[in-house]
């Protein structure tokens, strides 16, 4: 017996993923602006799904309030741009703001359990939303445009935004990937599997959860920044909408809670659904809600988790597995 992380498939696939990221960087050069905008949306979904999964899949923290950080990222961008900061640096500042705000929130929110945490986060998002609505400088209830981005020619603007989206997605996914592979990551996966057992083995559960919470704060803030950069207009009703949580839950549950690859798969699926049902009418949301509930009840490990279990497939390895040495590469 030996312990193995990489397999031939996972080496090839990780290489292919890096190559794909490099290839994606050329998208704005090859496609028209509307395609670039849609692909930016896909990257936003991937980022959101990965961050929600970091919280729920590894930290056991089910948040219905991550739209708080999406909103802070989006409104932070408008705020800093309004102070005279150039738009793209303003976006980086807004991402840092969302991450910074997540630290004091974590001090309080992480003491809550299950439903208290879920709805507590929701109420925090509502409070921030109400505060934005009360602020005339941020457009109050009617919304506000990121006018400063108009200084760029639309094709260039769309390209810069796409590259920023690609940059954020790669940074946050890589951060999560290396975090999960580090010795810290082993303790995170232990918490995912059994929090009490992990604690009894000396894992500092609270500190680990805080790390995930702040990472998700940064990541959802970055997604909010990208949303305002991609649509140029935000209003509190939609940016602080609980619908974002519904999308995140759908992507992660269908893709595979607590797997690294699953949420990416879920994001691609949601993107495909959104592209084919452009109206986004109520039936589409009925389908999303029913599918999410069904997966939670019947297939809790999601599509990817189930594939992984059945086939022993690892594409982006964050864990280890035990392999019999007899013969060739057979999984034990």
């Amino acid at each position, binding site marked *: 017996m030996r312990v193995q992380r990489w397999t031939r498939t996972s080496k090839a696939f990780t290489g292919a993923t890096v190559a794909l990221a490099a290839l994606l960087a050329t998208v704005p050069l090859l496609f028209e602006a509307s395609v670039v905008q849609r692909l930016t949306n896909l990257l936003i979904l991937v980022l959101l799904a990965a961050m929600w999964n970091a919280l729920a899949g590894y930290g056991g923290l089910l948040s219905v309030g991550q739209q708080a950080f999406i909103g802070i990222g989006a409104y932070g961008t408008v705020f800093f741009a309004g102070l005279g900061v150039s738009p793209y640096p303003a976006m980086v500042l807004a991402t840092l703001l969302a991450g910074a705000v997540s630290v004091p929130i974590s001090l309080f929110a992480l003491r809550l359990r*299950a439903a208290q945490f879920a709805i507590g986060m929701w109420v925090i998002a509502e409070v921030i939303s109400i505060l934005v609505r009360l602020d005339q400088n941020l457009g109050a209830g009617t919304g506000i445009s990121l006018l400063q981005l108009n200084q760029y020619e639309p094709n260039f603007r769309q390209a810069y935004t796409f590259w920023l989206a690609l940059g954020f997605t790669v940074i946050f996914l890589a951060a999560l990937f290396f975090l999960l592979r580090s010795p810290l990551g082993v303790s995170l996966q232990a918490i995912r599997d059994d929090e009490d057992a992990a604690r009894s083995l000396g894992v500092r559960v609270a500190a680990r959860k805080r790390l995930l919470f702040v990472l998700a704060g940064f990541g959802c803030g970055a997604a909010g920044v990208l949303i305002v950069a991609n649509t140029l207009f935000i209003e509190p009703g939609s940016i602080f909408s609980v619908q974002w949580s519904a999308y995140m839950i759908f992507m992660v549950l269908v893709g595979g809670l607590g797997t690294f690859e699953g949420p990416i798969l879920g994001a691609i699926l949601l993107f495909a659904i959104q592209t084919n049902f452009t109206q986004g009418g109520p039936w589409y949301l009925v389908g999303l809600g029913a599918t999410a509930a069904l997966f939670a009840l019947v297939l809790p490990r999601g599509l990817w988790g189930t594939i992984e279990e059945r086939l022993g497939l690892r594409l982006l390895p964050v864990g280890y597995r035990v392999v019999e040495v007899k013969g060739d590469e057979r999984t034990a």
Partner: protein
Amino acid sequence: MTIVNAVVQGIFLGAFYAVLACGLSIMFGVMRIINLAHGDIAVLGAYVVFVIVESTGMSPFIAFIVALPVMIVLGYVLQLTVLERSLKSGILTPLLATFGLSIVIQNLLLIRFSPDVRSLGGNAGAVTTSSWQITSGLSVSALGVVILVVAVLVFGALQLFLSSTRAGWRMRATAEDADAAELVGIDSRGVYARATALAVAIAALGGLFLAIRSVFDPLSGPTQLIFAFEAVVIGGMGSLWGTLLGGLALGVAQTLGANINPEYSALTGHLLFLVVLVVRFGGGRLSLRTAR
């Protein structure tokens, strides 16, 4: 005097929140789960009453009695199809499943009833228009008194049910320790189904009050859920009478906030909820306590 008036109106508003929160509190007390579709079920109840009123022209209060069996059956179905399954796996599953259900209910209502805002206030007769002028700055509406009285009756009846009927004893035993209750021959599945049916029925009563005292639309549910959950937490999770007091406290916090600035209404309620959470650090007691 405006403060006194705000507190009085807050108590009436809070009685409504307490009714909304009651079912949530029962389900948490008995099964330790929070139903994230609770607000949407209340709104669904409002629509069922609305349909009956529209088609027969009867009073909403009578229509609610007609709707009650429908809602009770719905509660059983909810338990047997969604909740029972989710109880068996992990603490996150019930939250995820009921969140999905919440989106389904909202959008089915949207498809069936359009996004139009509705109210049953006009159908409820004199109760919505009468009020007593106590002093120049203080008036008491008949509807407020009705809701407060009904809220106290509902909580009182539940107390009586839990403390003096066999079915109530079984429910408390199951809430205390389901496995031990099974050992002495209590069918926990049946108890859970009854608890959910009861919770859904009382949620529908909350929906009726929502429809009469203000307006509702297919997406009103999440706000009702948040207020109901706040009432449960402020009163202490797992405590039935606490939920009534929590509802009243939330109502008073909101009207006092609105007294400063109408836009602060929900905000002050949220802040009270967050302060209670901070003070208690999420250490809710997990037992269905009843006053003896």
